Structure formats: C-alpha cells, structure tokens
C-alpha cells in the first residue's frame, strides 16, 4: 500500500461520528453604508498605505510618474529610477512579462500592478497574477496598486464569492494574492516596522 492509501485507510477506519457542513448562508457578515469610504479609511489607517483618487483629467501614467518623482532611487538599477509594469500606458523600464529572470525585478524601485477586488473590512486588494513574473508584486521596493472603485465589496465573503465565480482568475497563471498595505513586521521587541521583506510602501490609485 502506498502512503496515500495507508493514510486514507487509517482516516476512514478511525473516524467515529461525522458532522455536517453548516449552512453558511445564515451568516450575517458586516456590511457598510459606504464601502468605498470604509475601504479608503482602512487603507490609509490600519493598512498603512497611501491612497490617491484619480481625477478624470489625469492619466494613470501621470500619477505613476508623479509618485516616482517623489521617491528616492534605491540605486539598484544604477542611478535610474526603475519602474516595473505590464499595464498598458505605463512608462516602465522593466516589464514583468518579458524579463528573463524573476530576480531582475528585484531592481525595481516601483512596481505598478492591477487589483481586481477591494475589500472594505480590511483594505485587502485581490491581485490575480496577470504577468509572467509575479515577483513584481513583492520584490519591487514600492508598489502602486490600481483599483476600480466599482470593484470594492464589503467583506471577504463577498470577495471570495466573486473569485469562486470567476472564470478569468487562475486561468492563465495559477496564482492570486490579497495585499493589504506595505509589508510589515513586529518581530523585534513588538515594534511595528513597515517594509519587512516585500514592499516598503504602497500607494493605491482608485480609478
């Protein structure tokens, strides 16, 4: 018998009584009068990110280049400030679809990626993998996440319902992640620090 067969056999033999799945439709998860306002609040407070609301007169690229000007180059790409993105219209020096190796994106000062669902209860943004190398989402020093206001839902139940129903997410690339603000840790004496291993700062651009 293989280990799999042994394990399954033991489980079946040892399980005594069984329990039914509860009816989760009876749960009444939290909703907000204005989920967008709640999302903005949580994003800029507990998640520790910045948030910009794009005006119709602006282009996304304008906003991204504007952010880039305010940030120091990490010096990892020589002296140039390196933007990594495969989003249409963004002037970027690195393209996560065409880099030879994922490591190259570690030189990115700013990654610009797209979120497809925003969650008001916890400022999470669902980012399905839409590029060959997902390291752009984590290895770039800073992140800009573009999110449509219409994509904001109340809570994680609503978010997961959308993901489960989608035929698009996971179809090309088999990965997706929720990101809520910059990477953090409090492992040293409980002191909160932003910028652990991944993004040191995040700006959400609401379109």
């Amino acid at each position, binding site marked *: 018998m293989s*280990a799999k067969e042994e394990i399954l056999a033991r489980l079946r033999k040892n399980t005594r009584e069984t329990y039914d799945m509860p009816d*989760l439709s009876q749960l009444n998860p939290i909703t907000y009068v204005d989920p967008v306002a709640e999302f903005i609040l949580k994003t800029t407070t507990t998640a520790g990110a910045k948030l910009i609301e794009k005006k119709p007169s602006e282009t996304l690229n304008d906003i991204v280049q504007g952010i880039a000007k305010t940030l120091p180059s990490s010096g990892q790409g020589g002296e140039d400030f390196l933007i990594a993105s495969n989003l249409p219209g963004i002037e970027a020096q690195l393209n996560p679809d065409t880099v030879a190796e994922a490591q190259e994106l570690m030189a990115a000062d700013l990654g610009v990626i797209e979120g497809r669902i925003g969650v008001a209860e916890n400022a999470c943004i669902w980012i399905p993998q839409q590029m060959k190398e997902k390291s752009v989402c984590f290895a770039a020093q800073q992140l800009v996440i573009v999110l449509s206001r219409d994509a904001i839902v109340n809570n994680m139940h609503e978010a997961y319902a959308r993901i489960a129903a989608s035929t698009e997410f996971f179809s090309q690339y088999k990965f997706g992640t*929720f990101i809520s603000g910059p990477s953090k*840790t409090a*492992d040293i004496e*409980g*002191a909160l620090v932003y910028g652990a291993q*991944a993004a040191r700062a995040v700006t959400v651009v609401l379109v």
Partner: protein
Amino acid sequence: MSTKHSKAAEAYLQDDAVVTRHDQTFFGVRQKRDRMAQALPEWEDLREAASQIKKHTETHLADYLEQFEQQTVKNGVHVHWANDAEEYNRIVFDILSSHQVKKVVKSKSMLTEECHLNGHLEAKGIEVIETDLGERILQMMKLAPSHIVMPALHVHREDIGDTFRRLIPDFDEIAKSYKPQDPHDPNDPTFLTYVARMHLRQQFAKADAGMTGANFGIAETGDVVVCTNEGNADMSTSIPKLHIVSMGIEKLIPNYQAMGVFQRFVARSGTGQETTVYTSHFRGPRPGGEMHIVLVDNGRSEIIGNPEHWQTLKCMRCGACMNTCPVYRRSAGYSYTYFIPGPIGVNLGMLRDPHKYYDNVSGCSLCCSCDNVCPVKVDLSTQVYRWRQELDSLGHADPMKKMMSNGMSFLFNHPALYTTALRLSHVVNWMPGALVNMKLNPWAYGHEMMKFPKKSFHQIWKEEKL
C-alpha cells in the same frame, strides 16, 4: 510536588522585569484581539461556523484529501504523501536533491518544526534560510521559538544587533545604505529590520528553492493558502523556481465559502489585525517553475479516532490561546517541554508523546479563558482536565497529589471522621512548622497561612441550632 514546567517557570519568574514585559506584551495582543472581536457583530456566529466547518471537514477528511489531490494534480502540481516525520523529511530531501538544490529559503511552518526538517536537511549539506524575521533571528542565534506566531519577542534588540553584526558579512555596507544615517539607537528595530531585509533579499535572489507551509488547503479548487505579514512566503516562491509546500492533512477546508470565514479569523485571533498583509493562493506552478505539495499525517489519522482529543485537529495555529493564557504569559515558551507552548501545546504535546511531555499538564489553572478565545472552539481546558485524569494510568501522576487525593477521598467519604478533623483543625494555627517549612507545606511558598476558626460551619449549625 513539581514538574519540569513548574521548575522552569520558577526560575523564569526570578526576573520580575522580564516577566512583566512578557506578560504585558502578550496580554496586549489579547486586547487587540478583543477589539477585533467587539468590532464584528457576527463574531460569535463566525466562531460557531468555523468550529462546525472544521468538525465536518476533519470527519470527512479522506474524501476531501482525495478531492484536493485530484484538483491540484490537474493544475500541474506534484503531490506526495508522508505517513510520518521521517518519511516527510526523506521526501523533501529527495525533491531538493533531485533538483540540485544547495540553498532553500523558507517561510514559517510549524509542521517543519514538528518534523525537525531543518536539521535533517542541514545534516545532508543543504543550506536552509528561515525568512520570517523572528525565525531568522532565532536561527542565527541558535535559539528555540518561544511562541508560535511571535517567536522572538523575548529577544532583546541588543542581542539581535550583536548577532547581525557578527553573522551578516556585509553588515557595514548595508548599514551605510540606510537612511537616515546614524540612527540614534544602533539597535533601533526599524534599522535592524532594514538590515535583515537587505540580507534576506540576497538570499531570495540566490536560493534554488522556496518552501512554505500552508495555513489552509481548499479541497474544491486545490488552492494552498499562505498568510504572512512580511511577504516572505511570496518572496520565497516568486524568485526561486521550485516551490515545496508542507501541509498537515488537517489543514483542509472544503471550499471558498469556508475560506471567507477562516481568512477573517487568522489575523484577528492571532495578532489582533483585521488581516495579514498577504493572503496568497497558490493553485499551480509558475511559468517555467515546479510546485510540490507534501501532505503529512504524522499521527493526525490516529488523533481523529481519539474521542476526547480529536478536536485539536480543528486548530489553526493562530496563537490566541497562548496570548490569553495567564500561565503562558508568566512562564513563557521555554518553560514548556514541547515546542508549542500554552493551552494548545499542552494538548498537542500529550498527543505527540504523553510519556515525554506530561510535565506541561501542570501548567494550567483551568481558568477556561482559552476556550473563549479559540476561533474554532477547541475545548482546550476540558482536554487538559482529561489529560490530568490519564496521568495516573500513564504512570506519571505526582505521588504527593495522589496521596493527598486518596487522603481527601477517605476523609470526605467518612463524614464522622471529617467533622472530627474539623474540630481539631484550629490546632494548625499553633504549628510553627506549617508556617515556615515550605517542603512540608508548599502553600507557604507564596502565602501566609490561613487561620483556622475555632468552630467549623458544621459545629456552628449543630451547637447554635441555626
């Protein structure tokens, strides 16, 4: 009357400041959890739902495991099964060596600690780099974790700084790139975190493989879900091309609807945040990459058959129980003999090896606070009580406790003797030995002796015809 836990705790308690800091740090996390609980009107309904989902899943686990494997294989993932820790370690080493892996970066996994994977790999010449900051610090300092979620909170910044200066070869170069220059405190946590960041990014870049644990496995879709605040699981798996997931079989949940319940609990219960920064769903390998999942039993298929203790399989390893445990907060992780401390650790240790870990069973005042914070309603305190009943048949009952229980039982079952003893009890007031000698009277360790009244209630009732 003492156990390894009580003796270790007594030594730990000698340093008042350390204990106060430890207690306040972890009670602070408990308070943050309380704020999260108060903020969600549906909190108690969620706990009941989570408990029921887990009870359902664990009692149909074989079916869900088959479904999970089917899905994940369809997505191009390699699935391996391990009966026990030895088999698991062997499988992981085989995968790594067949890919000529020299350096592995890994994110936190209690399962890998349970199976002692790191030591196994290192003995065979594979370099293992822990990438969770707390775990990396402990790895460099060769210390054991003191908590399952915040494992290095007991370590002082000076010692961390010292370790980094000794063991990170380009410490000075990294320090030069830090802005602002010359931090006021040479061991400021923000500065040290930056140093660790730069050091670990070098490791991610050079690693041949990344290993993660799994907070959850979703049977319906074959997703592996990993939650972190640091993003280290994602750094470990988006740069090196080989990804190995280590997952205890009890980590499965049925579907995305259930996932909503659990994602909302992980950080709220464990660290008092609304969410972890990263909640990553791995459904299949990266383009040009390879993904392996090792499903590990290591006693779980026996635990399901244990009528009094099977509910420990519901545990999400969130750490809420130890944050609230008044005994954990004042004795800390190193007082326990099992690598997981606190209420869940007492119970899991006994399930792992009752003859090795029974010392921890004394570390509980049966206050039941843990039962009330557990997001999946594991009946932790009842299980500790039940383990106490089993100690005698395991051959580990404290002889003094046994003698006292026998004595009490005898006395209480003979009312006439009992009331006579009460009549004589105030004689204790005059016994100097009882007041002073802690060996004869362990009560005297922390207490002044009580004064026995002249008459017991029994006597008053009888004599004063109440």
